[in-house]
């Protein structure tokens, strides 16, 4: 029964919100930088200059995808690093941080860690639709507020948040807005000016780029403190030698995303709709936030009376990779804080799977998945031995 782990390529992969396979064009563009074009962008000589040119090209590619300008783009190692940097810098002088409870831990936990004497952190929960209301978020903003953080799309539910509205209304009050767009970039159109944000983060590996390169867009003139110091790279905003191959990959992934967005979105939505139409035909299945504006590729489904962790294992052993949401390094599954915050009870939260499709998925894979899913859910419900 257990599939051969030495052949992960035989698996159907439906966990693109965790990470997505790099586009072959991305890999091709990266390869020379792992070989002959190995230079350090800070070097004066031609080898260094070639590397520097590659990094600057990637910066333009990312800027174009976001509708910003290249000097506003800062490369980091990860979305986590970028989010940490913005939150820390904002809290440096004390005051209030207003954070949606949907935020990724790199924002939520970072803010909680800073909370104390000078820093007051207000967390705003979403409604049952998986969306944080702009009014409620803005109600939490006072004169001392140094930063508001609202993600563009939630990693678990895929729900799109009212970032543009919040941004527009904050603009008049002079409070900066951080938008974690890691899950959204490459799947829906993202324009920093339309969103009225001051900081926006994206990560390459969530949209078919490589792991190890991410970007932070900082609106010209917005305050920023470097997290890493001791080098002049990235205009003194991030010391350390640039990860040139990954940055090149991120650039190419951005260019591809910009060119192919409409087509990509249609493909993803077709896959997701095919899955959701058929999965809802099964008894006791609920798709969370189905009526809310969502990313085109994410589906969060509760299977009544089923322990999702057990279901995940059974699906994995049959060759289908899905997710129950956040898992720690040892693989332990927690009930989703996001679902709990929406008012969904722990039992339903622990009965839910996240399925996130990607460009390489096919309708045939989804049909095969549905067949196995139906079998496994029936077995688990039948044995009724599922611990609660």
């Amino acid at each position, binding site marked *: *029964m*257990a599939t051969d782990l030495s052949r992960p390529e035989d698996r159907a992969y439906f966990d693109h919100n965790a990470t997505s396979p790099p586009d072959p064009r991305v890999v091709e563009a990266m390869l020379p930088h792992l070989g002959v074009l190995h230079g350090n962008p800070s070097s004066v000589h031609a080898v260094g200059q070639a590397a520097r040119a590659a990094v600057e090209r990637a910066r333009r590619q990312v800027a174009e995808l976001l509708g910003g300008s290249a000097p506003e783009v800062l490369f980091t190692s990860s979305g986590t690093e970028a989010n940490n940097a913005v939150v820390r810098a904002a809290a440096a002088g004390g005051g209030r941080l207003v954070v949606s409870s949907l935020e990724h831990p790199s924002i939520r936990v970072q803010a909680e860690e800073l909370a104390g004497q000078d820093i007051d952190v207000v967390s705003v929960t979403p409604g049952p639709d998986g969306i944080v209301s702009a009014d409620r978020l803005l109600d939490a903003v006072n004169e001392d507020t140094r930063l508001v953080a609202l993600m563009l799309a939630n990693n678990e539910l895929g729900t799109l948040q009212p970032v543009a509205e919040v941004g527009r209304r904050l603009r008049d009050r002079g409070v900066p807005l951080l938008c974690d767009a890691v899950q959204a970039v490459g799947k829906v159109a993202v324009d920093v000016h339309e969103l009225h944000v001051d900081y926006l983060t994206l990560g390459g590996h969530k949209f078919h780029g490589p792991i190890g390169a991410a970007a932070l867009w900082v609106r010209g003139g917005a305050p920023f403190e470097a997290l890493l110091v001791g080098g002049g790279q990235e205009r003194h905003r991030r010391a350390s030698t640039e990860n040139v191959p990954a940055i090149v990959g991120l650039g190419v992934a951005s260019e591809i995303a910009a060119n192919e967005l409409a087509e990509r979105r249609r493909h993803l939505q077709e896959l997701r709709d095919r899955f959701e139409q058929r999965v809802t035909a099964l008894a006791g299945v609920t798709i969370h936030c189905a009526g809310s504006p969502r990313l085109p590729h994410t589906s969060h489904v509760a299977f009544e009376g089923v322990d999702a*962790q*057990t279901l995940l294992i059974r699906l994995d*052993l049959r060759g289908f990779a899905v997710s129950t949401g956040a898992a720690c390094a*040892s*693989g*332990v599954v927690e009930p989703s804080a996001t679902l709990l915050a929406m008012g969904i009870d722990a039992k339903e939260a622990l009965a839910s799977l996240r399925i996130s499709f990607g460009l390489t998925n096919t309708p045939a894979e989804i049909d095969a998945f549905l067949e196995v899913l139906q079998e496994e859910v029936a077995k688990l419900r039948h044995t009724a*031995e599922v*611990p609660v």
Partner: protein
Amino acid sequence: MTLVVAPSVELETAVAKVESRAARNATIAVAMSGGLDSSAVASLLHRRGHSVVGLSMLLWDQSTQRVHGRCCGALDLGDARAVADEIGIPHYTLRMDDEFRRHVVDPFVEDYLAGRTPSPCVRCNTWIKFDLFLERADAVGADYIATGHYARIVEGDGEWELHQAACLDKDQSYYLFELTQEQLARSLFPLGALTKNTVRDYARQERMLVAEKGESMEVCFVASGVQQFVEEQAAARPDFFPAPATTPSEIVDTDGKVLGRSSAPYFRYTVGQRRGLGVASSEPLYVLGVDAKNNRLEVGPDRELVAPGLLGERLHWIGRPPAGPVEATVRIRSRHDGVGATIHTLDDGLARVEFETPQRGVAPGQAAVFYEGTRVLGGCRIRDRWEGTSV
């Protein structure tokens, strides 16, 4: 270049004998703790061509505390995962900390507070490592479970028998006396006929990353010492646990005469204990009984410590329950040599165990396990001393 050496013939033969029970295409879930033994089991079964799934149980999450090297620490689960990666088998971690707290940790604290000497490892094996784990393994579709226990399962006359490990130094059969026929039928103990050295040699030969790992501690979840642990747990949940007496215990002799006051709380004392009483006497004094209700320790000389028998509860027979009294060797704690005894089955899961020669240290809360040669017949939990028919 790596030199490939086949595992020793002894090991191959022993493992082959155990696994021959499992059908060729069966899926075996290995309970992986991250320790040497269960890691070796996973490796051996995989190497011999079985379909193996590694399952780890998160029992007691103390990721903030340094409890590495103990069987239930979250850090060890990282080792389990790394070993599974190394072997090339799928691995999943099951969160079972709620169950572990309810079935093992809470009763452990309750036992201490009630003046008993708990056997958390028996409870963990019975409730967690077999009952619940088997349920979870079933749920993910496994046909058998395999563990790193040193004990043997033998097919007897129409029923499964549990026997001591071939290597008596490592024998863990005492902790397994509550297993049922159904559980034995579905469990594999591939190490039962092996010595620890053979297992370690195998792990070294395979260059497993846990090859040099030490033994896990007896009470894995207690990082800070029993007294502190019990006090912390009781203080953290005052509505759940009775508040332990904070004043020193009264020390009385068998006539009820007060001899003094103890230096530590009553729950730090175990029947048979001599140290730490702090009362002067012409002869050495031992704890005879712990009376939690009255915060009192009864003490007496060595000769009063011995009991001619014990009263047990939760009596369990691994095979068919006997029709009449049973003669067996009884172990009243894990490292007890055993004593000849007659076991009488009473009503309501109770038992009376009459020793051939009186025994020291019959401690309420401990397990009394019955053996016939190497075979484990069953056992019970010690409720009290039995003082004999005519006192």
